[in-house]
């Protein structure tokens, strides 16, 4: 145990000495990681807000199940419970005849002529059904509509085809762009960071050569360099998170007008704790992978 602790301390000392010995190359690698992760973080921020916007739009997708005329309130409530249990349903609301009329009247303000001549309420009671997120597509809607049509007491089922198609296209587009651009950004980051760290390892080839000459094992040479890569990555990731938050706070007020136009009442949100931890962890991973790659490229052979 004491030997392991001593080895751990010596490893930390070696990594710290390595960073002190070449502060410029270590600094360049750290800043490179920070800049690359800042770009990825900014992109993630954009995509996460677009996803939130789409999520909000998605909640607007509803299926209306119009109930048969004259259905007693107890049956209406029983239907509500039955539909609530159906697969793919996120929530159900019962709109009584009266509530439907009130809603229509509220939406027809200024168009009073529409209500003229109505002796009685012609609107049926209905169930307004919100779909689970994974069902907000044509197939999900069609399946639910078919299931609803088979339930006694439901006279008709309606939903907006075009709106649903547009929503599905938008979700597909945003996710496709996120995967494609995110993938390219991640790959570019990995290559840039790995190459920068490779240069910093290359700058220390004399030290590596001498260590090998005096009998250092592969792990003795590699572990401090991997630890240095990990440190550079973590610090770079931390700087990226700090810069991203700084820019977000700084730029948000000037973008507020445009964002309100785009997002409506929804205000933009910063990345969650998980995503921020992920960004810092990605930095650490990049640092270690970059160092490992540099070592396999000829840093430690005999």
């Amino acid at each position, binding site marked *: 145990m004491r030997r392991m602790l001593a080895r751990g301390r010596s490893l930390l000392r070696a990594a710290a*000495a390595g960073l002190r010995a070449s502060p410029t190359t270590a600094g360049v690698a750290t800043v490179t990681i920070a800049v690359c992760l800042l770009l990825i973080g900014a992109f993630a921020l954009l995509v996460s807000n677009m996803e939130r916007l789409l999520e909000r739009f998605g909640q607007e997708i509803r299926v209306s199940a119009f109930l048969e005329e004259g259905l007693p309130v107890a049956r209406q409530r029983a239907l509500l419970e039955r539909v609530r249990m159906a697969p793919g349903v996120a929530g159900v609301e019962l709109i009584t005849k009266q509530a439907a009329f009130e809603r229509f009247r509220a939406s027809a303000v200024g168009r009073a002529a529409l209500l003229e001549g109505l002796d009685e309420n012609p609107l049926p009671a209905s169930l307004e059904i919100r779909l689970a997120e994974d069902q907000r597509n044509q197939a999900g809607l069609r399946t639910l509509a078919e299931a609803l049509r088979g339930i006694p007491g439901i006279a008709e089922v309606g939903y907006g085809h075009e709106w649903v198609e547009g929503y599905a296209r938008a979700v597909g587009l945003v996710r496709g762009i996120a995967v494609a651009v995110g993938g390219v950004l991640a790959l570019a980051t990995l290559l840039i960071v790995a190459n920068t760290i490779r240069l910093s390892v290359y700058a220390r080839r*004399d030290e590596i050569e*001498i*260590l090998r*000459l*005096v*009998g250092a094992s*592969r792990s*003795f040479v590699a572990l401090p360099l991997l630890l240095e890569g990990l440190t550079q990555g973590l610090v770079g990731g931390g700087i990226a998170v700090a810069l991203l938050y700084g820019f977000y706070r700084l730029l948000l007020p000037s973008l507020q007008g445009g964002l309100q136009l785009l997002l409506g009442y929804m205000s933009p949100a910063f990345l969650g704790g998980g995503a921020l931890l992920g960004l810092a962890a990605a930095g650490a991973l990049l640092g270690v992978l970059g160092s490992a790659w540099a070592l396999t490229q000829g840093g430690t052979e*005999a």
Partner: protein
Amino acid sequence: MNRGAEPAHPAAGALVRLFHVSKSYLPGSWALRDVSLEIQKGEFVFLTGPSGAGKTTLMKLVFGATRPSEGQILVLGRNVGRLGPAGIPALRRRIGVVFQDFKLLPQRSVEENVGLPLDVLGARPREKRARVFSILKRVGLQHRRFHHPLSLSGGEQQRVAIARALVGEPEILLADEPTGNLDADLTLEIMDLIVDAAARGTAVFVATHDHSLVERYGRRVLRLDGGNLVEDLPVAGAGR
């Protein structure tokens, strides 16, 4: 002269044994050809010959920096050609190496440079400090231990390199042209340190072009030419 022949020296206590060793870096050309020899504990051997004779290749073979194309090499009882990835570092921890260009780390102090083999051996800090101080005292540089190599003269830098090679108390010391960059006075100073290591039981190989050194110290001489071991003289010159 000794090419292809069995070693001329007795095998008992031999730290290095080569059996018909050949090394080729390119097909059709031999850096070393059919060399057999033995080096005993505490023996001091000069390795001479013109540039390209195979001196450096022979040293590289001994400390496992390259593997033989043919033949067998036993160093400290281990077959170097068959050592795995962990075996080579373990072997090198028992061998000290000195180079013409010193190979010191300029950004580390003298003490840190000399202590590197002890770091590798896992020595405790207190033990490391004591051993580094002791070896620096032996080479006369204890007062320079906190200096950096670039602030030292060439002779002092080579003394640091020798201290680094000896601090782990190696059983074999390999010195490749250790005085090649030094003037006559410093050359003798460095050679005396290496001879002293042999006197303490370390088997020493010194590769050199300098015939005057061979004459002056009068030790066993292995002469290589074109990759062949052409001469193995037990004692050369007047001795000292």
